[in-house]
């Protein structure tokens, strides 16, 4: 009986490890073939006006925190609706993933940009973390408690991040700026 459990568990582990390795290997190969423009094109459309409304409720156009009494007027429910619920958060998360891949792209091909690319990757990961916490809270029904802490924070960062990416795209004079502006 012990031998049977041993064989079953060993085979199960072997299959799981092999499948995981193949899946991630293929993902890595796909990612290695992507170029800078492809990555920026992968940003997914999200209601920019809604994002701006949520973000500008907390910060000014320049990104400074609004003075007391003039900020955080939107309540959790309104923010949730503006975001488009869990789907909206997932789009934000996917777009943050693009920024992480952008950093990986830089590390892979431009070693002299290693330090800054690593910082960029860590910052993008932190945004992902905020969004991940919110998604987790939404799934366990604790969204209301977590929302005040993470939602507006994540949206503001996301809003500003997309603005920075647009500026970057504009400065680099990559083709397709108009499409990108529409997309994000």
């Amino acid at each position, binding site marked *: 009986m012990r*031998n049977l459990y*041993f064989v079953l568990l060993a085979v199960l582990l072997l299959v799981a490890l092999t499948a*995981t390795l193949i899946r991630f290997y293929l993902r890595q190969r796909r990612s290695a073939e992507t170029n800078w423009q492809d990555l920026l094109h992968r940003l997914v459309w999200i209601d920019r006006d809604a994002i701006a409304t949520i973000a500008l409720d907390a910060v000014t156009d320049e990104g400074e925190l609004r003075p007391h009494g003039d900020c955080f007027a939107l309540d959790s429910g309104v923010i949730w609706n503006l975001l488009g619920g869990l789907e909206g958060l997932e789009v934000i998360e996917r777009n943050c993933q693009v920024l992480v*891949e952008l950093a990986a792209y830089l590390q892979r091909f431009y070693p002299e940009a*290693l330090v800054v690319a690593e910082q*960029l990757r860590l910052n993008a*990961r932190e945004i992902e973390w905020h969004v991940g916490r919110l998604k987790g809270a939404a799934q366990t029904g604790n969204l209301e408690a977590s929302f005040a802490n993470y939602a507006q924070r994540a949206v*503001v960062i996301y809003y500003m991040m997309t603005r920075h990416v647009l500026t970057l795209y504009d400065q680099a004079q990559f083709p397709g700026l108009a499409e990108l502006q529409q997309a994000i």
Partner: protein
Amino acid sequence: MTHLTGFDIFTWIASFLVNGTLAIILFVRGRARSFPFFTVYILEQIVDAIASYFVILHAAALTYQKYSWTAASIEEMLKLCVFYEVAVHVFCPTGSWARDVRKAFLVLICLSVVIAVLLTWLAHPYAPRFIQTQILRGNFFSSVLLSELCVGMVVLSGTVGLPWKTHVARIAQGLGAYSLARVGILTIQNVVGIHGGRHIITRTSHVNDSIYIACALYWVVMLWAEAPATRELPAAMKMQIYTLNRQVENDLRRIRTWRQH
């Protein structure tokens, strides 16, 4: 004294030649400096091939088993060192461990050890001598551990978005594939055990040796080839990246202090 079959001699010569070629490549191409543990591992394989030839032919069976146990222990330790070396290349891009992987990496190691210990505890191979049982279980433990660590490292780097340099990826792929194959082979050996005939152990050992030779050949080809040339960062792009990063960092700093307002 043990009788060597034609296939035994063939695998012995083949692995000796492939490991020798690999060692030469590591030094000639300057890879030994970047991968010192991997180089020591390959050199250990060469020394082991020479030593085991004489031990098999001239020493008593028990001496051979003791030698096998010692050599296998050294080999497995070196493989873990190679894993650490690869992990440093992947997770320390700027010289220190990326702060978002430290905890996950420790969890990966602990979890891998626990699973490997549990599976090895379940293994109950039959062997005439105690030391043979320990060799079978010990080899199984280290193969499971190394497979989990290699796969975990691939998953972790993919999740956090840390890229692999060409030669690091090739060493890890070879080591991971060989470890996974060994898990399968050692599962069979631990189930069957060492009975009088020993032919299943012999055949699976031949498969194991053949897979190692294939992996070493893969390393020979991949480590001989140069990595793709890196590109020079255009001045405009460099400026943009620095600006983008500074902006994102400033945003984060502000957002982190929100709670204090």
